[in-house]
């Protein structure tokens, strides 16, 4: 169990109380010039099949973003935080992971979830307005989308740490997994981001943190978020490797993330990657981005659209022609059509499920509340004109209420009310309401 006992770790120099640097900062420092492949000599050498694969996925990803945004306008999605313009990061994040790895997405990363293999309709379950994430985290090795900013980063650390503990206890079963946590530039200001990076470095957990720096946290630009040289520089303070990449260069994103993931997998510690990108759409469908950024700025970034950049590269390399592009466009329309059809067929959530997964076993109080709602719904179905707030007090004797009455069966058998005429219809935690 030396895994976490760093008193013996060779890379921590000197005793814990020494005041000199305990490790050399230089290898951790990011190159302040973001890594680029497109437009450089490295582009021609990049695996053409991988480049075409990335391009195909980017085309589909863009269409997914458009379709989901349209669905919000039709009221079929409660909200959709589009990742338009960030598709290279979304697709890259999913592609560099192996089956045993885990992804910890934030609320903007539905696309990464789909890119890892979750059905679009399932990946959008939460945004459709359901209580749950819509997919089995264990089947896909993807945590539910996390909305409280940066909180998921610590979960990635804990999971990666646990995997190494298990591997140490049972080397035969070692799956050498890596956890990839996705965070936004604004999220890096959260205390949880700091704590997660610190834990990852101290525990030497195999985690990669990908910060998609799209320049804004809703309306607030990066300059008000951080005074760090780059967000990747933050890594150094934790004793972890920081890397900076052009997040709109799909080839560079893939390369840098692959390297980072393999670095973590090989036991050399966590990595922080900052990908510089831009959100071309508003924060969500409910946001008005014209209040905080100029049309000129958006147009300038449109010229650096990850899809356009990769498109140009493939055509220059003779890897894509008009016929190929048309075929891709057809595939994208097919995806959009499939999403629309899946939305048509998607069932409404059953109100009973409100109570089923609060605990492994519902408490007696929850069973009673579930029965109360079920009875109310049954009443409404029987007689939609009836006042749903009227309950018949005759049937209820509060003093004879036993624990059995607090079960669903007990309550379903008769109306339950001991509140008097003015008590209103509010539910209490209790079974007697």
């Amino acid at each position, binding site marked *: 169990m030396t895994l976490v006992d760093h008193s013996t770790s060779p890379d921590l120099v000197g005793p814990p109380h020494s005041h000199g640097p305990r490790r050399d900062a230089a290898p951790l420092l990011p190159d302040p010039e973001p890594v680029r492949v497109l437009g450089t000599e490295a582009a021609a050498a990049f695996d053409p099949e991988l480049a075409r694969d990335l391009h195909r996925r980017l085309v589909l990803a863009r269409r997914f973003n458009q379709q989901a945004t349209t669905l919000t306008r039709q009221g079929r999605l409660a909200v959709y935080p589009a990742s338009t313009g960030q598709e290279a990061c979304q697709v890259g994040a999913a592609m560099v992971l192996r089956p045993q790895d885990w992804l910890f997405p934030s609320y903007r990363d539905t696309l990464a979830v789909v890119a890892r293999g979750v059905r679009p309709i399932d990946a959008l379950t939460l945004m459709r307005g359901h*209580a749950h*994430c819509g997919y089995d985290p264990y089947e896909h090795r993807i945590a539910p989308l996390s909305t409280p900013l940066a909180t998921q980063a610590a979960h990635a650390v804990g999971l990666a740490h646990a995997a190494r503990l298990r591997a140490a206890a049972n080397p035969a079963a070692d799956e050498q997994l890596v956890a990839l946590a996705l965070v936004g530039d604004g999220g890096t200001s959260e205390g949880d981001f700091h704590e997660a990076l610190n834990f990852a470095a101290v525990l030497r957990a195999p985690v990669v943190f990908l910060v998609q720096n799209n320049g804004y946290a809703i309306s607030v630009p990066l300059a008000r978020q951080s005074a760090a040289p780059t967000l990747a520089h933050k890594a150094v303070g934790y004793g972890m490797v920081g890397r900076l990449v052009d997040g709109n260069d799909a080839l560079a994103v893939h390369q840098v993330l692959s390297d980072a993931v393999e670095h973590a997998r090989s036991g050399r510690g966590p990595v922080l990657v900052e990908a510089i990108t831009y959100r071309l759409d508003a924060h969500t469908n409910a946001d008005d981005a014209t209040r905080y950024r100029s049309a000129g700025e958006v147009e300038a970034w449109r010229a650096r659209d990850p899809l356009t950049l990769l498109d140009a590269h493939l055509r220059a390399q003779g890897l894509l022609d008009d016929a190929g592009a048309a075929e891709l466009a057809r595939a994208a329309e097919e995806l959009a059509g499939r999403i629309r059809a899946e939305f048509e067929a998607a069932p409404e959530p059953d109100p009973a499920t409100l109570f089923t997964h609060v*605990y492994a076993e519902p408490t007696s109080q929850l069973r009673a509340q579930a029965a109360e709602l079920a009875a109310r719904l049954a009443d409404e179905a029987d007689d939609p004109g009836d006042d749903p707030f009227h309950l018949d007090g005759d049937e209820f004797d509060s003093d004879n209420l036993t624990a059995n009455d607090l079960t669903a069966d007990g309550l379903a058998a008769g109306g339950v009310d001991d509140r008097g005429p003015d008590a209103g219809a509010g539910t209490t935690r209790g079974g007697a309401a």
Partner: protein
Amino acid sequence: MSPTTMVGALNAALRDSLRDDPDVHVLGEDVGALGGVFRVTDGLAAEFGAARCLDTPLAEAGILGTAIGMAMYGLRPVVEMQFDAFAYPAFEQLVSHVAKMRNRTGGRVGLPITIRVPYGGGVGGVEHHSDSSEAYYAHTPGLHVVTPATVADGYGLLRAAIASDDPVVFLEPKRLYWSADPPGGTEPAAGATSGAQDQVAPIGRAVVRRAGTSATLITYGPSLPICLAAAQAARADGLDLAVVDLRSLVPFDDETVCAAVRATGRAVVVHEASGFGGVGAEVAARIGEQCFHHLAAPVLRVTGYDIPYPPPMLEKHHLPSVDRVLDAVARLQWEQ
């Protein structure tokens, strides 16, 4: 040998859990070589290794967030928060993830995490060392909230918490850490529902610590000894007080509480936390809803005042005392 103090019982429960289940991992601040500031984890790192009793960096959200990931992978983390008021940085992880993960994954991901929190006052602590934070936790659906008041329950409830597939906030009354069981209980220490010092106590069951016919005191954690002492003192006035120890705030044991109240027709809820919006308000409401026709008097509460936890030199005025409990009992409309 059975432990004789709460700290000993908690330590034994952790040791037995670590021994019985390789997935159990303890983590927190100073839990390793030091054994925790209250020594609850004493000797565990030496016996089970630094990885299974892990000294973490000093960051409560990081500790709980890391525990969440560990639990997602199949481990059973037991987190120690060093003090009640220093658990607050972890509140977001607790409320937004620990409490909701099962629900937000449609039942697919449960988090069997135990969060141990030393709580409460009466120990002469300076500010931020004496909070009673149970209402925050009890108000959060998805969490179980338990608090032992006896040595046997210290062991039994902690074993049950660690074995639970749901997250459990385990509130440890600091005031009772070093004491043996309070005198004055007439029922067997564990009542009808929990047994000897080495047995698991069920989560969700209150226990009658003392049967009585005149009125029912309902309490938990650090206030149990006060209530038992009050019941003894009341005998001089010819009053025979029942004492119920809730043990489990969530799930709440309506059955035991209501049966005990119906048997006497009078009830006082006693806790050390501030009264407004507190657990006592919930208990009183539930009794009113379920036992109305059996009550001879309104349910009264004896609680801490609605003030920031007072300094050591004044805390005795804030804490429920035998006198305050007896005063409340006297106000239960005996004249009718």
